């Protein structure tokens, strides 16, 4: 036994092993960057940076550095530079591990006037809701080549099963007329096309009354919504234009458009003519809303398909079903939610979401400011003016009175131990109103910085002492 330990120790502290680990690390890193270049970042992360074997190599690297440092014991003065450099690397590795395990690195998206305390992380979860209990389970992304071999996963507590996974999908929106006795969720569905949108293109979208996640969609500063006659309208938000469709019990469709300044326009949409009807909401931006189709009682049959080409914003999607009921299959794209009555007769809600961490306070975006290089449309700088809202303040006027902090490139905001950085924005025209801040909490920072300093100082001293030794040798000779 002792012999084996001894052998392992000898291997660990041998230079040959060190060089081997360095070469292994180098080769795996090269592979990772090649994967990243030819496929994408997530795939490189999946196969290399977050894989068990890569962690093993890093762990071996750490172990051998520790072993080598110990092996020089008892330490003498001449070992100091060597020990500094090696302890430095070890500290950087440990610091990185601490960051990886306990750190937070995510995004907060804020539109002007929004108050938000949820940090979106780079992981996906399944959120189950049964009665009052909510449970979120990690559901990691995987490349399609792995997903093709995915055998399905049971969540028996909820009677739900994930059958398939698509890494990069495009939705195929489908709403069809529901059978009278349909047990599925039903609601009025409407397909509209926005003409003259300032961002260019003519976006099309579906609104469906059958689920809260589908009943409203925001497009720039405009919110589109569908509701039944009896439902109450949610309150207007500041700086928002609204276009509400109201599906009446008798099958008629009405609309009510509200401009940013609160001007209202309403009417009935005639469904008799074959030609799609176009409505001018009378907003300052020259938008027309075309009603392409209307189904008074529809079920959602949206499917997700592997996207034929690489898209810029691919959405992962899952196919779920009730255990023991294959016909109940349903697609959920990232951000979707569905409700079921499972075999046990319980009401279940399943959501497929980006993982969120809720901060102990919230941020409110007062204004997003962007400056361009003179004579061009290239951004020269952008900044978010935000306010920190801790749970107590609620009323509009109280929030308006809060101190305003500016977050911009190289000028982050620190609140408690979280740091907010200006990361990006969501392009819009004529004015950008939505900012993306990255949120960071890094408990490993001190270790990493300390380690870096030690490593560099150690390396300099090591080289300096080597140069001196060489000189001595030559003078002696």
């Amino acid at each position, binding site marked *: 036994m002792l012999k084996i330990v001894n052998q392992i120790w000898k291997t660990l502290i041998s*230079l*040959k092993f*060190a*060089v081997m680990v*360095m*070469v292994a690390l*180098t080769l795996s*890193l*090269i592979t*990772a*960057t090649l994967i*990243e*270049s030819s496929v994408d970042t997530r795939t490189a*992360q999946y196969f290399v*940076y977050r894989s068990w074997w890569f962690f093993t190599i890093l762990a071996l690297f750490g172990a051998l550095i520790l072993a080598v440092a110990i092996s020089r014991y008892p330490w003498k003065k001449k070992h100091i530079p060597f020990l500094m450099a090696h302890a430095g690397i070890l500290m950087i590795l440990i610091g*990185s591990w601490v*960051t990886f395990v306990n750190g937070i*690195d995510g995004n907060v998206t804020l539109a002007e006037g929004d108050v938000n305390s949820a940090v979106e992380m780079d992981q996906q979860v399944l959120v189950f809701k049964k009665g009052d209990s909510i449970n979120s389970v990690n559901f990691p992304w995987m490349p399609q080549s792995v997903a093709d071999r995915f055998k399905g996963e049971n969540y028996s507590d909820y009677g739900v099963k994930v059958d398939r996974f698509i890494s990069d999908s*495009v*939705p195929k*929106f489908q709403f069809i007329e529901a059978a009278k006795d349909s047990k599925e969720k039903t609601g009025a569905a409407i397909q509209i096309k926005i003409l003259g949108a300032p*961002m260019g*293109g003519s*976006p*099309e*979208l*579906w609104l469906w009354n059958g689920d809260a996640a589908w009943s409203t*969609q925001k*497009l720039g500063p405009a919110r589109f919504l569908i509701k039944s006659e009896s439902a109450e309208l949610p309150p207007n938000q500041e700086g928002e234009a609204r276009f509400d469709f109201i599906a009446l019990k008798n099958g008629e469709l009405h609309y009510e458009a509200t401009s940013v300044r609160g001007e209202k326009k309403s009417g009935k949409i005639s469904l008799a003519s074959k030609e799609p009807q176009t409505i001018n909401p009378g907003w300052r931006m020259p938008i027309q809303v075309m009603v392409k189709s209307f189904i008074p009682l529809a079920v959602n049959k949206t499917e997700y398909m592997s*996207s034929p*080409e690489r*898209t*810029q*914003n691919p*959405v992962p999607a899952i196919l779920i079903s009730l255990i023991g009921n294959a016909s109940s299959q349903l697609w959920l*794209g990232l951000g979707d939610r569905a409700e079921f009555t499972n075999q046990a007769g319980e009401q279940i809600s399943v959501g497929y979401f980006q993982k969120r961490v809720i901060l102990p306070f919230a941020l409110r975006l007062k204004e997003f400011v962007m400056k361009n*290089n*003179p*004579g061009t449309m*290239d951004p*020269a*700088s*952008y900044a978010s003016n935000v306010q920190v809202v801790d749970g107590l303040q609620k009323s509009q006027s109280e929030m308006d009175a809060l101190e305003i902090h500016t977050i911009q*490139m*190289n000028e*982050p905001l620190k609140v408690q131990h979280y*740091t907010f*950085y200006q*990361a990006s924005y969501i392009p819009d025209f004529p004015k950008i109103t939505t900012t993306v801040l990255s*949120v*960071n909490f*890094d408990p490993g*920072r001190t270790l*990493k910085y300390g380690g*870096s300093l030690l*490593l*560099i100082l150690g*390396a*300099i001293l090591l080289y300096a002492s080597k*140069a001196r030794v060489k000189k001595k040798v030559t003078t002696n000779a």
Partner: protein
Amino acid sequence: MRNFKKSVLILGLVFCGMIHSTANSTEVQFPEPLKDLQLNDLRLIPTQSGGRIKPFDEFARETILSLTGMRSFGKMDPSEMLISIMVEPKLWSELPFLRISNDDLKKQMLLDLSQKYFSPEELMKNNVFLQYAQGISGQGSQVTSKGIDVTTSKKDPRTEELKRVVDRVTRFQALVSGQLWMVAPDQNQKWISLNESMKLQTVPILAVMNILKGYLEKNSSLFNENSFLARQSISELVQDMDTLKFKLKAEVLYNMLRPFLQAMIFYLIAGILWMFAKTYSFPRMMAKFLTLVAMILHAFGFALRCYVAGRPPVTNMYESIIWVSFGVMTFALLIYIKHRQNILLTTSCILAGLALFAADAAPMVMDPTIRPLVPVLRSNYWLTIHVLTITLSYAAFMLAMGISNVSLFQFTRKSTETVEQRISLLNQLSYRALMFGTVLLAAGTILGGIWADYSWGRFWGWDPKEVWALIALLAYMAVLHGRYAGWVGKYTFPLWTVICYSTVLMAWYGVNFILGVGLHSYGFSSGGQAVMGGFILVQGSYCIWVAIRKKMTSDGTNANA
């Protein structure tokens, strides 16, 4: 050693030949430059383009660059050429001066493959061009109902070049119609184009119109007087002209002097002279003198560029090559102080000269234009330190690579005591360079982490640029540890040093130009693959040649023994 000198001389001649051949133009008759023009005032007229205020000279050079692929074209001064195009659009539209560099595209457009330049007229009549130019305006990104953009991100070099050709023709038309030249600012400091202000009867506009008139009528005195008047009257309208005045002058000086081009020539000559410096005193004196002149020019150009741009040159390939080649000289001198080996200066002068040549030879690939920075790169202390440190390490590795190549050359010779001594000396020198390199690379990579942490809150994110810096560091560390353990010997040490240099090239050039992914996207570009591939091919064949020669000579020695 004699052999080595000879091959360097031949290499030098080849490069001189290349410079000469690029200067050769086509046989078509381009208009001759007008006599008695004083272009200095014209060059110094302030104008706005590309997000900053610059002298007309720079505006002209940038426009000529985007049209022809070179910063000056033919015998005409760029500023004069721009005026000439504006006053004689019909003549110029029939002259071949718009560059198309992609052969596949030429084939697709049914153009003459042997021709480099084409006339605007010819392109505008081309069917492929017309179809694409019409398509490009109607092409927007398609958005599906949940705001998902389905436009693909793949890039085809032919389409990319076609896009540039469309841009060239559009730019030509914009220039001719007076939309390109922003003549003067209004009260709100918003610059107005010549086209919009043509009817105004203000002093600057009249002066500009008279410049054009003077040129058209070949009336040089009218041209000269009004150039002066235009410069004066436009300058009066520009805010902060007091500080800008010197910057404009500095930029024109920088453009006319071309300090890096001159430094390149001096470096190359000095590099060759250093080879003979040990035996003869005249070449030694000359070499010292030329190295000094070249370094002064190099540093002066660098300082001018910093002054004009108002920031240290940290953003693109062109600027980094200039910095790195200066770094090569600095490290060579630092090591020279201790070791007094002329070979250090031979190697570094030739490397610096070749690097500057590469930077100057392909302005379309390595854009020398001074541009405003993207927001991430603005006013950041850490960024500047990080980039300067990390690129300085590239310089040390480049020097180590150069010396190691010389060391490898020794193995093709018969092994004698002097040769052996020379090898261990050369290896010692490149080891010194590697010391500088590894410390600076480690420090630079960590500083990059600090910058990233400070700027967007993460120290390390496995971004390809970071990862490749780490790969290079690990590769060199493996070699150094191997040397320490004794497996990397006097032959394999220079060999591995040379091989490891490819990781530096990858971190420096490859991530931005070949991989093209990650967060360092502000530095992405394309082109130069052939040059880079050529370098690796030459380096690879050289290593193989050395290996073969080494085997042959050692076999010979063994047989003799």
